[in-house]
């Protein structure tokens, strides 16, 4: 036998693609070539496979070996996940295993020099890409693989064990399922936040309607504390969302919870030195998902928003609008999901004090500081609240604030009301849908009219206020119409960031 084809998969973005690893053994000078657009880590598999086979007392052919990666596309194939398939193919062409024995399997995993199987980035999407064949994965990744596998999943720890199992000399070993539940008490609790009633209320609205939130306040006011707790009041992920998030985390080789499935909304808080590529994705030939994709179905928290590179911030605009990011490179392109709740924090001005009358920055300095964020980005924050350092009385108060559990209950109810009515969360309502699902009372439309007439509200802002008003109504009294109070609250929680008395329209 000089030729065999073994099924495996490669990753592009967050999507796996099945690959046939074809192996040919021919006469000629001993050598090993991989063709079919392999990337660097793929090419290195020659040395890993050879060492692994020899470590497990399995033979290595001293002939001319050609490996072809075929999946009908011209895209670059990356990753070390093809190691096991190559090793198995080599064993078949040497007649250690039979073609019939391996034909119902596909293989995913990296080989260690000692013959052990290691997990690779994107186990979940890779397994999802395989048809109903039995997938062999490293034991460490068994739980992840089971989440999405269409066929059976077999897990092994070493190459020797794998060979023995395929020959049916030893039975396949299955692990016990572990609990995927995360207990609420482990998460940071809103009751730890003293005072900050406005900011806490804004968090509740943000969670209930998925409205983007900007916290304006000096360092030490508790902005990151609030952002961490915002995740805690979001409900558990629905099954499809959980699988999407799991796939993205797996593709980025980011740690997964013990059960394998991401059931809680993720929180990503990249540092302000984060590069454009790390934020939106790309970078490797497999187009690794960036922070915005990792935050899908969860919260992306950007502390010190002004310190981020302007290009990084402006790259957020399209994903914020569309919920996906299209990453394209010369050789490949991918659509990565990026549907996240954006929470950002910034100082109000260079001196950080903010309070008019105590702050020493002049108008120009303030404007210059805030001009770092482009207007279109600022416009996308439905909620903008000033946060101050808590008062000493509040810090020392013995009474605890409302706990996350109670808030989460209200949030959950408001969200299900919105979904039942609109079919989507309130932040996703279109302008036409607003008229249908969020009709205004007379007082409310008057209030909004005043604001628009005075030039305090743009057309886009007008719709955003109405969406927030809808969420406030859902949280408060479940009324059909959005009334004056709901709009007033929405207005009070969306403060103007540019100084009011600037430009001609102010007068």
């Amino acid at each position, binding site marked *: 036998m000089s030729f065999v084809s073994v099924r495996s998969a490669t990753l592009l973005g967050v999507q796996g693609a099945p690959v046939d690893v074809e192996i040919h053994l021919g006469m000629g000078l001993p050598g090993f070539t991989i063709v079919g657009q392999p990337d660097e880590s793929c090419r290195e598999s020659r040395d890993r496979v050879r060492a692994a086979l020899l470590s497990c007392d399995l033979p290595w052919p001293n002939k001319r070996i050609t490996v072809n990666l075929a999946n009908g596309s011209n895209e670059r194939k990356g990753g070390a996940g093809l190691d096991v398939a190559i090793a198995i193919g080599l064993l078949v062409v040497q007649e250690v295993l039979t073609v019939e024995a391996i034909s119902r399997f596909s293989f995913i995993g990296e080989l260690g020099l000692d013959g052990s199987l290691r997990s690779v980035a994107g186990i979940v999407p890779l397994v999802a890409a395989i048809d109903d064949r039995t997938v062999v994965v490293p034991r460490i990744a068994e739980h992840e693989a089971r989440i999405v596998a269409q066929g059976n999943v077999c897990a092994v720890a070493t190459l020797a064990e794998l060979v023995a199992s395929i020959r049916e000399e030893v039975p396949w070993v299955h692990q016990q399922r572990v609990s995927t539940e995360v207990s609420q008490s482990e998460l940071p609790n809103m009751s730890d936040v003293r005072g900050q009633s406005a900011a806490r*209320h804004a968090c509740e609205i943000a969670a209930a309607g998925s409205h983007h939130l900007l916290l304006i306040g000096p360092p030490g006011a508790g902005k990151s504390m609030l952002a961490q707790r915002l995740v805690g009041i979001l409900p558990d992920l629905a099954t499809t969302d959980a699988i999407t998030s799991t796939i993205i985390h797996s593709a980025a080789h980011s740690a997964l919870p013990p059960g394998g499935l991401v059931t809680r909304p993720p929180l990503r808080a990249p540092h302000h030195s984060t590069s454009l590529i790390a934020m939106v994705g790309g970078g490797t030939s497999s187009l690794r998902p960036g922070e915005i994709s990792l935050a899908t179905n969860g919260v992306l928290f950007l502390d010190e928003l002004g310190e981020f590179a302007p290009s990084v911030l402006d790259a957020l605009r399209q994903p914020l609008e569309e919920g996906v990011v299209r990453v394209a490179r010369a050789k490949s392109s991918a659509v990565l999901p990026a549907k996240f709740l954006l929470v950002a924090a910034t100082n109000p001005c260079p001196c950080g004090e903010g309070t*008019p009358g105590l702050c020493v920055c002049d108008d120009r300095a303030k404007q210059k500081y805030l001009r770092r964020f482009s207007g279109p980005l600022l416009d996308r924050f439905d909620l903008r609240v*000033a946060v101050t350092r808590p008062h000493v009385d509040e810090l020392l108060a013995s009474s605890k604030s409302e706990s996350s559990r109670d808030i989460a209950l209200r949030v959950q109810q408001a969200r299900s009301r919105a979904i039942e009515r609109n079919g989507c969360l309130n932040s996703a309502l279109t302008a036409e849908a607003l008229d249908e699902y969020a009709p205004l009372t007379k007082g409310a439309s008057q209030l909004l009219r005043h604001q628009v007439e*005075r030039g305090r509200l743009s057309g886009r802002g007008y719709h955003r206020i109405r969406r927030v008003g809808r969420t406030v109504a859902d949280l408060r009294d479940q009324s059909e119409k959005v009334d004056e109070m709901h709009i007033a*609250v929405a207005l009070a929680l969306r403060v103007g960031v540019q100084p009011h*008395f600037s430009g001609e329209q102010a007068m």
Partner: protein
Amino acid sequence: MKHSGHDEGVIAAVLATKPQLTCRKFSQLLATAKPSDIAQSLDNVRPTADECERMAKRLELTCMSVTYVGAHDYPQTLVQDPTRSPVLFYRGKLAALNQRRVGIVGTRSATAAGRYLASHISFDLAERGISTVSGLARGIDAWAHKGVSVAYGRNADHSHLGIPIGVVASGLDVVYPKENVELWNFVSEHGLLLSESPPGTSPEPYRFPLRNRILAALSEVLVVVESRATGGSMITVEEAHKRDITVMAVPGSPRNSSSAGTNLLLQQGCAPVVSVDDVLVALGLDTRESHPPVFDERDALSPQDEALLKSMAGDALTLDQLVLRTRRDVVDIAYSLGRMETRGWVINNGGWWEVLGMQTPAGYGGFHGGGNKLGN
């Protein structure tokens, strides 16, 4: 000499650029001699024909006029001044100085309430035909002139309005700060823009205190709207004191460091300004006739809103701080604030809420027309 063909003003302008000829000496010489005579008698500063040619062109190009001590149009108010400028460069009409003049100065980092007040006072003064003198700096200065520009925008006939006077530190062709360029043009078009610096002079820091002395000398009454305990406005106040010019100050919250300077002035005995009437009285004008009835066009507040407004007590507060202060529900307060902002009672300044005048007849009368009049 060849420059005899040139205008005296051009020669004075060239002499003003000579570092060898100090301001004081030049001013003394001008008291007795014409600029061309001075140029003849002093060898080390004698202007060449080329210099005069260039200066004449430059003045024409930048639309600047020149007046000097001894010239027939040199401002009367400055002639007697001990530290008068020998040469003044200006755009616009010097006749503006024949009007009654009120200087309005203040800090560059003003609160929203301070900016609001500065523009309202100058608006009211302009409506009564009184000139506003200010320095066109950031903050209060700019807002004082913005009030005047609103008055000009509202009236088709400008003849009865007060004329804006701007005194700046840089050359008139060097706009600083740049964002005030529209105001700068407004003042030179409708009023008088004045500087003692020759064309092209950049705004070096030492020029500002010198500018302040001219600003003070040109004001009959100086109103300080908001000022820290030290700073440019306090220098202007000192210059005004030296010249025996009435200084008035707008009182502010003691917790507000932007009002530290004005409150200090009040402690030292200067008169407070709570309405434009106070300024009119200081100018010795009859306030009865010129004064339209004080009333607030803003909708009356509910008792609940009024209580909230009172508890704010003139401080700038965030929503959280208000919740802590009033112990009311956050939604409740947000509702009140949203309502009051729409009606023009409060304003949100980047997350902090400020009060725009209380609803009392004894309050600032300049609010007639309220928030709606200036359409903020």
